[in-house]
């Protein structure tokens, strides 16, 4: 074990953290606005990965370009799921919402299985094998691109939420949906757009990640769990928490893979989760609820 190896692992984790952040921000946004946990989040991500895969295979579009198309495709899927299904259970008890979202997850996963088959895929990218040496450590160019693009996507989302009228209304509805109704906001439209954006985030993340990590229809649930984990660690309802939590968990997993064994890397993020729940249950950036 040496310092260079650890530094390399930390850097790899950091660069991978961008997609984790994007995933978690999407989940956090949906939960924050609608108080619905999108249990189909990881399966939506896998669909984003497949869109990128086929765009690369058939049309030769690099995933580092097509991720925007994948975001748009998943935005549409998110809008459909919200309008058609989620909207009907907003006032329902949590267990009904959970059952519905689990159902959506199962349908998305098995639809992918029927259409794309069970094989593990990986999206081809022109940058897939390039590396740059940075002193003693090397930077995987694909990872770096993923990180930069995920960061740019998050920044664009931040600007939308904090600088545009619709973005402010989404934050207002997340803060106090009754208050948003009182000021005459069209809350139904806000919910639809927010769900669409949450799905777009995870779609973009899926496209970016598909160039780094192999995926298959069955990969979705694990990604849902990771996203959920990050959101709790970062703090429910805090987008900044979700963003930084994604990077933290990715670095922790990467270090864990080196320090322990690679197959135990999830152990690290769950230990992190347990520690957070024990000592800071509101999450790193969450507000205490009275």
């Amino acid at each position, binding site marked *: 074990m040496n310092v260079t190896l650890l530094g390399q692992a930390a850097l790899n984790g950091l660069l991978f953290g961008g997609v984790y952040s994007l995933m978690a921000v999407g989940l956090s946004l949906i939960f924050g606005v609608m108080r619905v946990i999108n249990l189909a989040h990881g399966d939506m991500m896998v669909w984003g990965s497949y869109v990128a895969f086929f765009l690369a295979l058939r049309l030769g579009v690099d995933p580092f370009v097509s991720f925007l198309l994948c975001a748009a495709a998943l935005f549409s899927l998110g809008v459909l799921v919200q309008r058609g299904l989620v909207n009907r259970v907003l006032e329902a008890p949590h267990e009904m919402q959970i059952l519905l979202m689990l159902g959506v997850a199962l349908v998305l996963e098995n639809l992918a299985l029927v259409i794309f088959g069970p094989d593990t895929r990986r999206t081809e990218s022109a940058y897939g094998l390039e590396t740059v040496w940075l002193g003693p450590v090397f930077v995987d160019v694909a990872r770096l691109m993923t990180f930069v693009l995920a960061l740019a996507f998050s920044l664009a989302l931040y600007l939308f939420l904090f600088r545009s009228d619709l973005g402010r209304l989404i934050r207002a509805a997340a803060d106090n949906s*009754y208050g948003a*109704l*009182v000021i005459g906001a*069209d809350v139904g439209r806000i919910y639809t757009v927010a769900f669409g954006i949450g799905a777009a985030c995870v779609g973009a993340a899926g496209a970016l990640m598909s160039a780094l990590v192999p995926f298959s229809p069955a990969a979705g649930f694990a990604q849902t769990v990771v996203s959920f984990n990050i959101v709790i660690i970062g703090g429910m309802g805090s987008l900044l928490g979700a963003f930084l939590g994604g990077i933290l968990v990715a670095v922790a997993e990467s270090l864990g893979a080196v320090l322990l064994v690679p197959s135990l890397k999830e152990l690290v993020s769950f230990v992190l989760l347990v520690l957070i729940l024990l000592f800071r249950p509101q999450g790193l950036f969450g507000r205490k609820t009275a």
Partner: protein
Amino acid sequence: MSALLRVDGIEAGYGDLTAVRGASLEVRPGEIAALIGSNGAGKTTMLRAISGLLPIRRGRIDFEGDRLDGLPPSKVVGRGIAHVPEGRQLFPSMTVLENLELGAGHAKALKAESLEWVFSLFPRLRERRQQLAGTLSGGEQQMVAIGRGLMARPKLLMLDEPSLGLAPVLVRAIFDNLVEINRRGMAILLVEQNVLRALQLSHRGYVLENGQIVLDGPRDTLLADGHIKQAYLGR
């Protein structure tokens, strides 16, 4: 004089509970009307029904001669009615300025001018405009709630218990503000449990008991009324 708002025999409630049963009232242009009554009399339900937050089961509501009931809250605000709800219902993790600007939804063109007006009414809010609304004191939060309502540039401002939980000195200040707002020609429908103060600044009042209007009239008539004195003013 023709009414700005006319509520005619409405019935509204929640589930099996009927909170308002056949209540009627009107607000005339430029006046302050008080809707008073004890806790649970149906005052909040009346306001929610007018705002479109709660559907009415019977009766009708007209605003400036046009049918209002059945419209969603977004359309009601657009017609010129702003609701300052009970408990303020601010956006606590957003700044004071954001809270106010969000209120301007249907009157964006006038945003800068409205903001100036709100800041001149509540100079404290100008100082605190970059502060998160959730960190303000109760009185300041009430100022934001009223300011947010004013940003919509309504013809009618409806306030639900603006004095609730505030120290007497703040209550006086808020009520002085309402008189000043009204001097600019804005009609006000004020819901209060603080009966004496509410009647003192109003032109007319309505007394709601068990979901029905049991008494109405000009301020002085109500202040002199035996039932009101006994039931609400404690003398």
